[in-house]
């Protein structure tokens, strides 16, 4: 009787431990997966918004020759080339936060960096990257001052 009960108790404890361990692992995984899904959704949305925001470099805006007072739609291009005046107006006159709203990146931080073909920075606008929770980095190509340049857009939270 007692021997049987001992064996049963030990087995039960061992099985329970394994069961609880397994359940614990599954719950942990479930939680982890949910977090991952949320992050993925968030990243995909960030990717979408990043590309959308990057298009600001490939349109002229409205009006075509806007200034900080009359700008309706932001655009940094003229004649299919990045326009330095518009770039500087965005950076200096419109500013980071207003720009963020106009290009649909509310809730995110961002940074635009333009590199020439030798990877030298020719223009940068936005916050420097710091402790991102999620980061999206995309690359586009355009023409600036008669040369091919790459545009790196980083968006993070």
């Amino acid at each position: 009787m007692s021997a049987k009960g001992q064996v049963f108790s030990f087995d039960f404890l061992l099985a329970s431990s394994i069961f609880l361990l397994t359940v614990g692992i599954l719950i942990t995984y479930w939680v982890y997966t949910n977090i991952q899904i949320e992050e993925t959704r968030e990243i995909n949305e960030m990717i979408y918004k990043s590309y959308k925001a990057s298009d600001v470099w490939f349109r002229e805006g409205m009006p075509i020759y806007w200034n900080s007072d009359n700008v309706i739609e932001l655009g940094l291009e003229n004649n299919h080339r990045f326009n330095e005046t518009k770039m500087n107006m965005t950076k200096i006159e419109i500013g980071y936060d207003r720009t963020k709203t106009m290009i649909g990146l509310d809730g995110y931080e961002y940074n635009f960096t333009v590199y020439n073909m030798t990877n030298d920075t020719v223009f940068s606008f936005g916050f420097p990257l710091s402790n991102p929770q999620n980061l999206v980095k995309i690359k586009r190509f355009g023409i600036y001052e008669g040369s091919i340049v790459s545009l790196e857009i980083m968006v993070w939270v």
Partner: protein
Amino acid sequence: MKKGFVFTMDVLLGLSLLILVLMSIAFFEFESILPEKEYEKLNYLTNDILNLLSYLEVRDVQNKPTVNKLINDGVLTEMDLDKSVLDLIGSFWYNGTADSKEIAQNISREILEGVTDDACINITVDIETIYSSCDTPAEDVSVAGRIETGYIPGKPAYGYIARAFLTSITSKVDSSFIYYGGYIGEGNISQLLYLPPYDFILEVYMELYVGDDFDLYINGYHSGNYKRTLSNPINMTADKWYISPSNYTFFNEGNNTILINFTNKRSYISGGYFRVMYNTTQMAHEETLGIDKISLPGIYGVINMYDAFYVPGNLSSMEVFLDFTANNPLFMNIGNKTVYQGNTSTLISTSTLSALLDYDFLSHRNVPLRIGHYALNNTTDTGYVTDVFLTTSLVDVMNLCDLNSTPPSNITPDCCPPVSSICPVSLPDVQNARLDLAKELDKIFVNIILNNTDNRVGLVSYKAQVNDEDIVPLTNDNTTLITEINSYEAKPGQRCLCCAIREAKLLLSDPSRKKYILLMSDGSAEKAPPGLCPIGPNDDFSQAAINEACDAYANHGIQVYTVGFGQDADNAVLQAIAACGGGKWMSSTNYTGLEQIYKKFAEEIGGPSIIYQFQTIVSTNVNSTLHPESYILLNYTPDFDPYEYGEISLNKEGKRLRDLSGDSVDIPCKNGSYYISSEVKVVNARMTSYSGEFWTDRLEINSSATGDWKNVFWLGDFGLNYLILGDPYIVYIPVELITAGKNSVCIGSGFNITNATGGSPDSRLIYTMRVRGVVGYGDAFNTSEEANNDARNRVIEKIKEYVNVTTDDVDIETKTVAGIQWLWGPSLLKIVIWNKD
């Protein structure tokens, strides 16, 4: 020991499950980025690259080694620097040579290398690869395409274009004409010839069908005596003369009086023209569009005029001024309407004319014009121009004595029926053989015909065939004919009616004369040589004769009369021959009846040829003068446009029809083809026509505008009786029917609507054309000077065949342009991108 084992197994099983779960989790590690996001990234990259190539200019990449070399080598000019790189690549690729394709590859590589290290870039055009950055196998591929047409290296994308206008000419060779109508007589004839300002005269030429020798006076100066040699009604030919250059000084600018002064007698011109060829700097002919003042010729003798005029549009009003002096009443017919008859000069107003004439009907037509004296037209003492072949059967049955009649008093009866019995002369029924009576009738016929001195008779006697000795050609020698008739002897044989018709037909070839055959037959057609008379499948000798008569009438204008001679004549066939031969048939079984028939036919055939006499009137006791101040004034809405800026007008003569379709007078009309350049616009075209003693009555044209032969003039539209109608020498062709390329014309004459007498080999097309001395904008050039030179050269090249010009004669208009695309393609240019890994 046993428990320990169980324990150990449980632990192992539980641990295994745990490890399995952990491994599963590790295996199903969450994919943080969706595959479509990867593709979206590729797609953005592809479009960015395509945009780079599309919007990057050559200027932007001029430091790239290949582009730099092309610039240094002069292959690429300053103009090319504004082209897109894509255009540059495409245009070199489309050049097609290995070198240019390599250039396209090198440019692509130099521009795209280093753009991205993560992806492979490929540029293709249609199915060919221009450039590929790597050969890694592609999995997910993004493609962006653009349909492109582009610029070509060396051609400017902006620059200067020019067009040119001719404002003057250095010189051109042009001609002025005067035309004489279908018949202008009779007496001396004057016409006004207008010469525009000219530098010098190159040639003066006359081509006239004249009735006699004449002296020519130019503005009153005697300019030579000219002999009639070639004017021939049979061949429908005209005399041609070049006037000696020593007489050129007699001409003036403006109106010149050309006087034909007949040397021997009052005579006529039956068609022709006078042409002065000169060098001039005048670009266009002077014209008053919508108004034509047609000057009538001066006629000094007897006014007898057959002519026509053309209404080149919708006729709105017209006026006629007849200035004449005459001792007999004068009439004027326009179309078939007499618009005037009287003794004094007159101005016929449009209200009078519109009441008499149908202006709508006259519009766009060649309108016959006839002016003359009634008294002259009624004259019948001239014009016997009949040719007739008299046929006689000489088969042996012509010896039969079976014609019931009293024999002619001047021959002795020599037989009585039946032919085998010899009857006493005293018997009342003594008769003559058929042949004896036929001879007598032939003589009666010949005598009546030759009673009119210009008529001619030929003889054909026939049996089973007609040999040379059976023929007496056409002659007016009565003795020859009577002698031949007296020699006729009947011999065994068969009747070949078609032989008789055919031989006579072959000898009646003069188109200027009325032509007849009198076919007598005492029996049926018994023979028809297959080689000569097509007899058809049933050996139908009668039909062969009928066919021959049809051909004689339809194609040769020969009327075939027939006589049923005695009781054995096949009158049904003879009737058919006459019906198809345009003649008459009569028959009799007795001599008296036959004698009446022969006399009747002879008088009818050999009588006055009124339709021919009109142009050879011998005028007596009539004097009249048509003064050259006479005119016909037409107001109309024209068919063609007024001159446009820079246009040059020229008169041109086409070749004679003899040079196009031979020397013959072709029935029903003479044809030829003229080729008109697409560079010219014909604004006036007319055919000349020497109709001889007939009326020019038809003109047909076949061009791309008509598609087939189309009649543009038919005298029969104005009436069946040509006698009262004018006779055009020039027949105008509506210009809308003259097109670039081949234009065939066929012109002919006749003496009534059922008859055709053929067209003259001397007829020709004369036309007025315009050439536009204007060229539009051409290629773009780097400098305005180059563009101007190009435009100047183009306009000179265009018109040098027609006029002499220098660069000073050309006005230039220059423009600057940009964005000129020189087509290559269109082609689908594609950028293909895929990830390297």
